[in-house]
Each structure stands twice: as C-alpha cells, then as structure tokens.
C-alpha cells in the first residue's frame, strides 16, 4: 500500500490533538507554550503535504504553501521570544509558572 495524502493529514491531525490536549490538561505555562508549538507544527505538516500533493503545471511542488510554512516558522520564532519574555516577567512578579496560581482575572 503506497502513501496517500490522508496518511499525512491524519498524522498532522493527531499532532494537533496532542498539542491541544497539552494546552487543556497541563498547568505549567512553559509546557502549554511547547504544546502551542506542536499545534503550529501540525499545521505546517498539512501545508507541506498539500504542497507536494498539488503539483503546479510544470511538475514542481506548489511553493506558495512552503512560503506560508516559512512565514509560520518565522512568526512562531518571534512569538516564542516574546512569550518567554512575558513568562520571565510573570515569574519575577509572582514566583510561579503554575497557571492556577495566577487567577487575578478569574471571575
């Protein structure tokens, strides 16, 4: 049995589900951040799979999707830098990375 597009899409969806479960279940804000990265990467995998599947007229992969992946990686790197700076500032103010200890805005 040869590989189909659905194989890649299912792996991508599973990776997204893992990241999603991490965001909901974990209480450590750094792990939540890592789970966000997993979800972004799941999106990248399906974009690259579609890029390879949907060839252009001259038989090359569709590079528009790969450019989008490139931009996602760039934005994710910038986001990690800003997010970790916020976490450091938060830790300085509250001495915790546990989201249940940070509930000032909770109704």
């Amino acid at each position, binding site marked *: *049995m040869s*590989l189909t597009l659905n194989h890649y899409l299912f792996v991508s*969806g599973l990776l997204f589900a893992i990241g999603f*479960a991490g965001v909901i279940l974990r209480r450590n804000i750094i*792990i939540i951040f890592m789970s966000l990265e*997993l979800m972004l990467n799941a999106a990248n995998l399906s974009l690259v799979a579609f*890029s390879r*599947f949907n060839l252009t007229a001259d038989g090359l992969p569709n590079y528009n999707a790969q450019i989008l992946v490139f931009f996602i990686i760039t934005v994710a790197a910038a986001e990690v830098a800003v997010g970790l700076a916020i976490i450091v500032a938060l830790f300085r103010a509250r001495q915790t990375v546990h989201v249940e200890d940070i509930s000032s805005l909770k109704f």
Partner: protein
Amino acid sequence: MSPILFYFFAALTLIFGIAVIANRNPVASALSLVVSFLGLAALFVGLDAYFIAVIQVLVYAGAVMVLFLFIIMLLDLKAEERRKINLVAYAGGGIVTVGFVVELWFVLQKFDLGKTGFPPLAEKNVDDVRNVGNALFLTHNYPFQVIGVLILVATIGVVVLSKRESK
C-alpha cells in the same frame, strides 16, 4: 518516501509529542520536543521539501529549543510535585481531544481526493532552495519585508519586557 520510513518518523513525532505533555520535568519535555521536531523534519524531507526541513531543524530544534532550555534554567524549575488532579478539567480535555480525533477519522474517510497517492515530480531532483528563493524574493517579496518589521518589533518588545524597571 518508503512507507516504513514514513511510519517510523510519524511514530517518532507522535510518541515524543505525547512525551512532551506527559513528562512532569520541563527539561525532559523540552528535549522530547526536539526529537519530535526532528521527526517532523524527516517527514518534510519525505515530502521533497528539503529547505523547509533544514529550516525546521535550524530554527526549531536549534534556536527555539535553546531559548526554552535557557528560560527553564533561568527560572530554575523543578519537576512539579503532584497536585490534586482536577478531574472535571481532565475529563473535559480528554473528551474534546478524543472527539476531535474521531471526527478527523470520519472526515478523512469521506475525503476521496486524499485517498490517491502523491503524483510523481517532473524531475527526480528538485532544485528546492532555488525555487523557494524565487518564490520568496520575487512572488512574495512584500510579505517578506513585512516579516522583517515584525521581527524588529518582537526584538524591541522583548528588550522592553525583560528590562528591569529602575526605581
């Protein structure tokens, strides 16, 4: 990509992805994330996206992971002690996740286009970096410059955020 390699690297990506959220020690989570990203980069190679695979390893497994480990070191995080588990939150999160996977399975069953294999490329060896570079600098030049501004803003923002306020 041969199916055996695909299953191997897909399993690697997913198992270490689960290890990221299952580990109690943040350092172990970060290292699992590196392995997961490397598996994903191998899947990208299998899809003939060599440039993206290299960028994935350089940016994620390199830069982003070093940043994560650095912050974990800076905050001096220990493995979390076991807290009282919030059963409702765990049940809710589990149900939503399992529901998502089941839904994905049924949607993919109905997606007939995805059941066909990948069409062969016109030439065996794609000049990948040249093609990506052409697309990036000719077709998508404007977004590329905007992303430069975004990175500048992020850099300034990080400096402002992490600067200690002088009394």
